[in-house]
């Protein structure tokens, strides 16, 4: 587009500044920007008339290990006892009444009275390379264990899906708190302004139990909420031009809107109008860049083979590949949700199918990121919202027909990879039946503190003043710690 006059020059300068991630000069500060200032997240601009772009990339508190995060959330909570936490004793005690001391004073979601223990349904073996014990359900992933740190000592305090998902994703069991992706975007901004900085991808056909709150911005400005990208329909809501408006015509309308808005600016001097002009032009660019980023048909065959992707499907495999493409383009936080891991029954039928769906894509993602040199600066996290009971479910005080496990908060397993995480190791231990953590417990807030630490953010300093408190992701109730032992 041509530069028409001084004003347009100013708009250009504004955009240039924005893409160069500088604070911009603007008379009426956009509110989000001022909030950042008040929060002390960004340094005060030099002059009072300046404001800040709430999404501009910002320096972290200290040297980061991770620039990007891919968070693979298995909605419903996969069984640690069928995948990662090998318990020979549980094989031995299969079918026996659960000892009283495990049950006293505890409440479960569905188990009542005295349930029976349930041995792992699948055989475990030791990975020769790393010595890690793993079941036979993830044969491809197994080959990547040298990149992965398995944490077996996670604990939650919520045994229902929605509150537990809120806890692991927002640090709080109640509704209304910002998700970890929102905190990250708030702390670090985004490197690519033609794409949302925080993208959410769903597979399995349903949203997580916590709903949109799982990627919401809570009390942070709504600009920090996750943007759901979709495999069907527009990759970003309202991205494509409606039928009958092609790109050329859309370009004309954007140009006309700019010209008339510039005139409005001359009339009123409201710098928010300049921001709007810039946002329309960014939207116009996003139509190309987001479509391009979400178009996996551009990938070569060997990539599709590696991930097991089929363009046009809504699948976990496609989402893994998309996650890599988005990270490549500078998206800060990519959050995947895969529905279907709540195995109250069907550990023998539905569960192995789910394992199959994620095995190859996850292995491919780790390998692919590594080959592209992205794994060094990308943190990959895998896990659910809690674990599963070593006991067989006995819902309603009845015997279950198909083997399944109830929700379990006292121990569960997640893993992390990339961004300085030590590969080929496990951290933490549970007791002989996998009920409780006996060594190196990691709370959800410890996990959050660790993720922020890897991003170069201090969990005590990344705060937002709300309701009379400097609110943080990790909260004030108990001190949280960074799990340094797993960082290389």
């Amino acid at each position, binding site marked *: 587009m041509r530069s028409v006059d001084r004003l347009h020059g100013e708009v250009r300068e504004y955009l240039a500044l924005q893409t160069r991630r500088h604070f911009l000069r603007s*008379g009426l*500060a956009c*509110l989000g920007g001022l909030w950042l200032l008040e929060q002390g997240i960004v340094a005060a601009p030099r002059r*009072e008339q300046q404001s800040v772009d709430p999404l501009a990339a910002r320096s972290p508190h200290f040297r980061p290990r991770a620039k990007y995060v891919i968070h693979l959330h298995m909605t419903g909570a996969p069984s640690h006892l069928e995948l990662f936490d090998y318990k020979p004793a549980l094989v031995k005690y299969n079918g026996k009444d659960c000892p009283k001391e495990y049950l006293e004073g505890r*409440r479960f*979601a*569905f188990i*009542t*009275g*005295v*349930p029976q223990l349930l041995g792992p349904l699948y055989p475990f073996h030791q990975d020769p390379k790393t010595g890690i014990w793993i079941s036979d359900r993830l044969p491809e992933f197994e080959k990547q264990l040298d990149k992965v740190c398995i944490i077996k000592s996670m604990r939650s305090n919520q*045994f229902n*899906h*929605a509150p537990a998902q809120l806890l692991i994703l927002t640090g709080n069991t109640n*509704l*209304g708190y910002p998700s970890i992706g929102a905190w990250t975007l708030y702390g670090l901004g985004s490197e690519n302004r033609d794409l949302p900085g925080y993208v959410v991808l769903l597979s399995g*056909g*349903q*949203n*997580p*139990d916590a*709903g*949109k709150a799982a990627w919401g911005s809570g009390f942070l*400005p*709504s*600009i920090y909420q996750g943007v759901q990208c*979709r495999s069907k*329909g527009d990759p*970003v*809501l*309202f*991205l494509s*031009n409606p*039928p*009958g*408006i*092609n790109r050329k015509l859309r370009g*004309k*309308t954007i140009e*006309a809107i700019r010209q*008339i*808005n510039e*005139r409005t600016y001359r009339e*009123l*001097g409201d710098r*928010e109008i300049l921001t*709007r*002009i810039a*946002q*329309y032009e*960014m*939207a116009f660019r*996003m139509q190309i860049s987001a479509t391009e980023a979400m178009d996996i048909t551009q990938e070569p065959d060997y990539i599709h083979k590696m991930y097991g992707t089929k363009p046009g499907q809504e699948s976990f495999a496609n989402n893994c590949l998309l996650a890599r493409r988005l990270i490549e383009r500078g998206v800060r936080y990519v959050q995947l949700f895969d529905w279907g891991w709540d195995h109250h029954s069907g550990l023998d039928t539905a569960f192995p199918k789910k394992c199959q769906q994620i095995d190859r894509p996850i292995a491919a993602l780790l390998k692919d990121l590594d080959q592209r040199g992205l794994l060094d600066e990308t943190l990959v996290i895998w896990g659910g919202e809690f674990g599963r009971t070593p006991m067989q479910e006995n*819902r*309603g*005080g*009845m015997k279950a027909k198909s083997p399944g496990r109830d929700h379990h908060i006292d121990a569960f397993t997640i893993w992390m990879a990339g961004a300085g995480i030590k590969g080929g190791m496990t951290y933490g231990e549970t007791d002989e039946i996998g009920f409780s953590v006996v060594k190196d417990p990691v709370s959800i807030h410890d996990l959050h503190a660790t993720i922020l630490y890897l991003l170069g953010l201090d969990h005590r300093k990344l705060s937002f003043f709300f*309701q*009379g408190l400097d609110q943080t992701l990790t909260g004030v*109730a108990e001190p949280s710690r960074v799990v340094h032992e797993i960082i290389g």
Partner: protein
Amino acid sequence: MRYRLPAGSNLSRANRFPAPHVALAVVVACCWFSGSAVARADEPVDFNRQIRPIFARHCIACHGGVTRSGGMSFLYPETVLPPGDAVVVPGKPEESELFRRITSTDPDYRMPPPEKGDGLREEEIELIRRWIAQGARWAPHWAYVPPQRPPYPKLSLTAWPQQPLDVYVLAQLERMGLSPASEASRLQWLRRVSFDLTGLPPEEELVRAFLSDERPDAHSRVVDRLLASPRYGERWASPWLDLARYADSQGYEKDNLRTMWPYRDWVIRAFNADLPFDLFTIKQLAGDLLPDATLEDILATAFHRNTPTNAEGGTDDEEFRLVAVIDRVNTTWEVWQGITFNCVQCHNHPYNPIEHRDYYRFLALFNTTRDWDLRNDKPLLQVPRDRKRFAEARKLDRERYRLELEQVTETRQLAAATPWHYLRPVHAVSTGLTELVVKQDSQGVPEIHTAGTVSHDSRFDLHFELPDGMQRITALLVEVLPRDPRKAVHTPELGFEISELKAELLVRVTEGGQTKQEHRSVRLAWALGDETVPFDDPQATLNPDKWGWGANPRMCHVRRLVVVPAEPIELPDGHVRLRLVIRQEAAPHDLAPLVMNRSRYAVTDAPLWTDYVRSSAFRERQRRLADLRRQRRAIASVGVPVMMEQDPWLRRVTAVFRRGDWRDKTDVVEPGLPAMFRVPDQPQDRLGLARWLVSEDNPLTARVTVNRFWQELFGVGIVETSGDFTLSGQPPVNQPLLDYLAVRFARDYRWSMKRLLREIVLSATYRQSARVEDDKLAVDPQNRYLSRGPRLRLTAEMVRDNALAVSGLLSTKMFGKPVMPPQPEGIWRAARSSLRWKTDTGADRYRRGVYVIWRRSSPYPSFMIFDAPQRLVCSSRRVATNTPLQALVTLNDQAYIECAVALADWMLQLPVTEPRARIAAAYRRATGRAADEQVLRTLLHVYRVARATYEKEPELARQLAGSAERSALALVANTILNLDEILNR
């Protein structure tokens, strides 16, 4: 001084200025406005403005509400000033420990300790010195002192004010060296006021009439007209519904829909009727407790039933009931008091003199309603679909309640007077895994306890010995007890529900030398419960369905059911036992089996029960109750969750949670207001609370409320943190203005929201031009001092409503169930839910935003993108952002394309055919003003390119709107609907 009174308006009296005390005003104004921290040495130090912030900044982290190192708190004068362990000796800085410590160079003595933070700055130390020297006068935080009408300030630009509030704005502008902006054009003001009052652009006819109206009261005529429009309530409902966290769904997981819309309609009607804010408050918080509560008064209490319900399987209903109650407590404080009460859940308030215990005293006010996080959201008020039947329905409900109360009271009295014989079980088994064990209580009364795993659908089979010599049974008593009755009053135990109770006699008969047991069934006639208006009818205990008497889902107290046969059960001679078969199949809401864990059984042969059920009074009442239920069912209604108190004898007791953890309780507390606010003579219930909130003693309600109105009109409140008026929030940028408005609102206007708005929108402050002048930016970049008029982006609902209005599609149909306008595929996919979005057709497709269905897990996407909150919790303020995703909505969303095509059709039906004239007309329709040459040229260029393209590619045109002409105009309309001036008010 000049101000205009609307001729013949009933507002004239209230509009009159307070008598100006000019002489005093000059002096006080100086104090009010002396903003800088250090003033002249002889000037009195203002504790709140100058000293308290120093304490807040440097001291209260360690000496505050949560931590009181050395027993010292700077929130309470008792630990700072004499008598007592004072750290301040009034009048003598050098003898005061406080002063010695902040000035000490000894790192062990100095405060704050070097590792805790920097010492006080010199000017702060000087202020403390002067404050002590002047006598160390303590004053409560400004927000805790009821507002007084501020004195009249001294002004130089006396011709500017139009309304009394303007003098307080002007006084500050003059102090800051600013001058007001010129008056906005009539059109700019009209557009602004029209959106602000009705959420819609001014109708063309109103624009024409107003622009040519030369009468001096033209402005106030417009305002009165807008305030009288039904659109007013629809616009002002939205911010209130944000506070009320109103939504059409339950919130968690499946996020099922529930019927809350009658409450939304109540809010719209309340605004339109200008229900004074004090009544608006009382009805929503305690309408059910009003002596002559109408059906609408009860409906209003749905305000606090907007809390999310967790219907996820396996959730603890008591836990999520408490989450809801805590939400009600916090929301009440945020909405009416601008105080964040949340922190007190776990510990004393860090910044305010509110103690941990106070939280639970307050929580107790909300802890005795009957709701229990049930999937069906009971208790529900049956709201007739036809409003004309409200009174009739309410009359039936009242009578039913009165009769049930009589019935339950009599049953309880009779039961207490009855000589009961507790029965000893000789056989007690259950189906499922449930084990039954017979125990005895301390008095030797036999009881049946469950043990081990308790199954759903447990059916008890109980055989009892009967007392020796008993001839007949006139009544049977079923008593269900908590395992730990002392604890259960505040920590309820799992409840139970009896689906069916059957009785028979087991008679041993000898026939032909053979002894066998004969089962003789017994006809039971009445099952009399112990609760008024229970969720399920106790009489159903005698029917073979799933429902009956019980405590679903939890129990706090001993529960009693009296079962009476129509005629006494005559016991045959010989060996007779009583057998009870008790089915318990009610589907629980949280999957905990609804089975009696501890129960005991008794019979009596006293004739009083037989006499009672035979009495005509009893029979007449039962007949009448059946009639009432039948008549009420005949009134077509929808069930809306409302607040309903528990019967006094079944009420929960509240105990303090240790560190905010509901599982760990300490002392029991009585309901009441926090000590710092406690007012004698108010009943300590929700109604007393509501009345206190709007009483003259309350320092905050009026301020917090006027501040929210101000925020809606000017973008930022006078107190920027509109949900936090305490020490942790921002101080008011102009306290005299805030206090003036508060007094004006509560006293002069008797809480009339319309009159308050009227004064604001007619003020010179509001009428200023929104043009940003470079020379003012340095002093007033954010327009906090109001040196120009407001210019705000439209709210989420307004963006939609405006496009519909401009394009002529808008339906003005009001009220009723929520609507589903077009939204992209696949938005609704909540976990474990099969609810489907069904796009409305016809008028419902084009209803105002306030009627669009609000499902919490996936709210209407374009509203979210335009900064609407998710309505999960109370939300005091929407911060407007400016993002590319917003551009994509108004450019591409089908809902907006429909508007563009409709606007094209509007152009096509004009008498003119010239594209230029059509486009000019559309621009005028959309903005209210004539397009200048440059705008027209730009839009015409879009038209020409589009027209040429569509002629060349008719298929493309067909996809948008059909013909090339219609499509080209639609593209122009799409452009117009995306202009900055369209998206702002």
